[in-house]
């Protein structure tokens, strides 16, 4: 009797152990892919520098580690990570639903415009009301801007790839119109809006750093979106729509509504990122408020394998590279646009390694 019990326990244990090791090895493989992709991209960056007469090793010494000098520079990295994590995590939701939202840049701008309007036009509110209101305005505006493309897709089957990109241009032009026209601060020489009232500013995390509470909001939202996708019934429906819209319809899911939800979530995250840029960093609306965070967010999401939790890490990584490239431009006159090249190579490497993994898996 005891022997049987022993045997049963061993079978159970070995089954549990097998499942555990399977999960572990899968986790290891899925972590290896993005790491390898980043290494390839850095190597390519080094090669590009070397070929053009720069110092190739700068990619590692300056771009990766160069900006970890003191608390202030780490704060700057986290400041840049904030919009990247927000946008990247939001895009994970869209991409999981097979919605190619390439319009985060425009959604960020529209969010920034809305935040500026709310932050400049109202006065006398408490910071506990005004600052969240500004964030809410940004998120809603971003969601609405993305919602246009979502609506055109579900109603007219217009490709969201093209419409979101066109809406990027339109948002940029709109911003340029506003800061040179109706919203222009007449006293300034440079086209910019009036300054947000102090109560609308995003509270700082540490008094003497620019870093604001946006980074906390970004991390919390990324975790929330992870749980939403994995554990909620709505998240399940989004994934089914993304994987097989026909089966989703057969199962009674509303495909159009799920597409709209995915689009609006990603738009809201980008809009919120725009609100933080205005209310947390610049305090004013400018023509070029984003250095391309919306496009970089695509790379963040893809490197994260469309997993919002992993987007926290990949967002942090891209922020590091972006900070490092600024240092590199100052110290060695290397054009900062090098980060775009690295982003592109990261995406290509991610897809290449993912294919390689599939091949290895079928061989094994």
């Amino acid at each position, binding site marked *: 009797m005891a022997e049987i019990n022993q045997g049963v326990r061993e079978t159970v244990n070995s089954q549990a152990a097998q499942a555990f090791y399977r999960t572990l090895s899968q986790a290891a493989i899925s972590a290896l892919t993005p790491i390898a992709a980043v290494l390839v991209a850095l190597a390519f960056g080094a090669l590009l520098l070397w070929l053009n007469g720069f110092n190739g090793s700068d990619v590692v010494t300056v771009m990766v580690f160069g900006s970890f000098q003191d608390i202030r520079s780490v704060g700057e990295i986290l400041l840049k990570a904030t919009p990247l994590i927000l946008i990247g995590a939001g895009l994970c939701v869209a991409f999981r639903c097979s919605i190619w939202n390439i319009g985060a840049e425009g959604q960020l701008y529209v969010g920034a415009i809305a935040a500026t309007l709310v932050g400049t036009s109202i006065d006398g509110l408490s910071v506990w009301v005004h600052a969240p209101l500004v964030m809410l305005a940004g998120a809603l505006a971003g969601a609405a801007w993305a919602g246009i493309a979502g609506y055109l897709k579900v109603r007219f089957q217009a490709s969201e790839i093209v419409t979101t990109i066109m809406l990027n241009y339109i948002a940029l032009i709109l911003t340029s119109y506003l800061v040179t026209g109706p919203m222009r601060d007449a006293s300034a020489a440079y086209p910019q809006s009036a300054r947000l009232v102090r109560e609308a500013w995003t509270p700082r995390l540490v008094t003497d750093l620019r870093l604001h509470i946006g980074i906390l909001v970004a991390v919390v939202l990324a975790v929330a979106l992870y749980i939403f996708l994995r*554990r909620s019934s709505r998240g399940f429906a989004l994934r089914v729509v993304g994987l097989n819209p026909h*089966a989703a*319809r057969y199962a009674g899911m509303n495909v159009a509504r799920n597409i709209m939800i995915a689009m609006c979530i990603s738009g809201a995250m980008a809009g919120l990122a725009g609100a933080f840029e205005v209310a947390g960093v610049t305090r004013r609306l400018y023509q070029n408020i984003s250095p391309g965070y919306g496009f970089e967010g695509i790379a963040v999401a893809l490197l994260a394998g469309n997993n919002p939790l992993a987007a926290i890490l990949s967002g942090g990584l891209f922020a590091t590279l972006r900070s490092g490239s600024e240092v590199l431009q100052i110290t060695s006159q290397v054009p900062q646009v090098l980060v775009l090249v690295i982003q592109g190579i990261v995406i290509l490497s991610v897809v290449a390694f993912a294919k390689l993994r599939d091949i290895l898996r079928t061989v094994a």
Partner: protein
Amino acid sequence: MSTQPFLRIDNIRKRFGPIVASDGVTLEIEEGEIHSLLGENGAGKSVLMSMICGMVRPDEGEIVYKGQSVRFASPRDAIRQRIGMVHQHFMLVPNLTVAENYILGQGSAFGVISDMATVHRKIRALSERYALDVRPDAIVEDLSVGEQQRVEILKVLFHGIDLLILDEPTAVLTPQETDRLLSLMGDLVKDGKTVVFISHKLDEVMRVSNRISVMRDGRVVNTVKVGETNARELARMMVGRDVRMELPRSPKPPGRTVLSVENLTCRAETGLPAVRDVSLHVRAGEIVGIAGVSGNGQTELALALSGLLPVDSGRVVLNGNDITGLDPAEINARRFSHIPEDRHKHGIVLPLSLSENTILQRYDQKPFATGRMLNRRVIGEHTRDLIKRFRVKSRDENQPIAALSGGNQQKLVVARELARDPDFILVNQLARGIDIGAMEFVMEEMLRQRDSGRAILLISTELEELFAICDRILVMFHGEILGELPPDRARLDELGLLMAGNTDQPALAG
């Protein structure tokens, strides 16, 4: 007479990942014969022939053709050696004309297309010679399935072949069209050609072949002359054991009407009329079959009933409630289950786990959802229960459903749909693409459901399936229900005529 056979396949092996498609196949084809290749779905017939026509390269083994060992790098090589194959899924480009399809891949890759007139003339001449009625300037997508098959056969003849391989050509034909095809095969042999006929239908194979090779599990189990065998023996060779053609059925009178369809009319996604004025009813405790050659509106009828295709006119009533025009969610909630025709398109989500696939319709309902979150423990338990009850072969409930065989995927779909405790079950192609073991299981399950008082509508192109379990059979042609018959094999001819749209039979009135 040479001792060397026309075509010899020697110990061919082919693997696709973990799946062994050909496990040491040896086969000889004589010149001028009709050689049938008989076997279940998945027995390895199509893969074997794809290797002969150069589409797939064998891992091991040798193909000796006309006395020479051949290795085809591409289908083009096979065509040069005068070997042609008519595939189950037509290799015709829908937006091109017949003639353009024929010259595709011919001649120089960068040449200017000139002299189409000669091509047209040649097509017309061939078409007349074999009485195939193919127009060279017709656009392929405008043709019916039967016409497309004639275009496909003529294409192979146009390229000039000695060996013709036909892969399940009768699956899309009415019995009468099948007759014409079988006699065409005779004509081709008279012209000195050799034909390999792939089929899983015993009667056709018995009618037309000189010799029959039976395949099972990637091997040829036997080759016999047609005069020296019978259908029962062939069936046993195919399956590896005796097949019960009859399933026991309890004679029980049907109950109240569960589903009634009144004058239903709808169009296909292309906008063309698909279902015309269809009326039918299904009662509790009966299985009503819909027979018909595929493409006669069955797909659209099923989609319209389940809310996936808009209804133009008419009514669908379930349990006394009008469900016309409701969306699939509302229809699902009214005890309506649907085992869809295209499993991979509608039935399952391949990358998701078995667990996730079992809650496709009920993901936001208790007990699978608590509040807005999924209850993974309950979902897991439920799935494990279904896996056990329906004998779904799988590692565990967290395995992606893509890793399962077609039969096991279908069992899970059937399990899911029955677990929803339906009053009405719509089944479109119950046993498509699954092995005989799984097929018997799901058919027996359908009979159990019938006996427990559920109403079942079974749409199928397989007459055997319909005869085996239905109480009544309706015949659909061109979007209309042309008549109703009892599941009596003696009336197969009438059924065939109805499937071909022929209603001039007094016996069938009413």
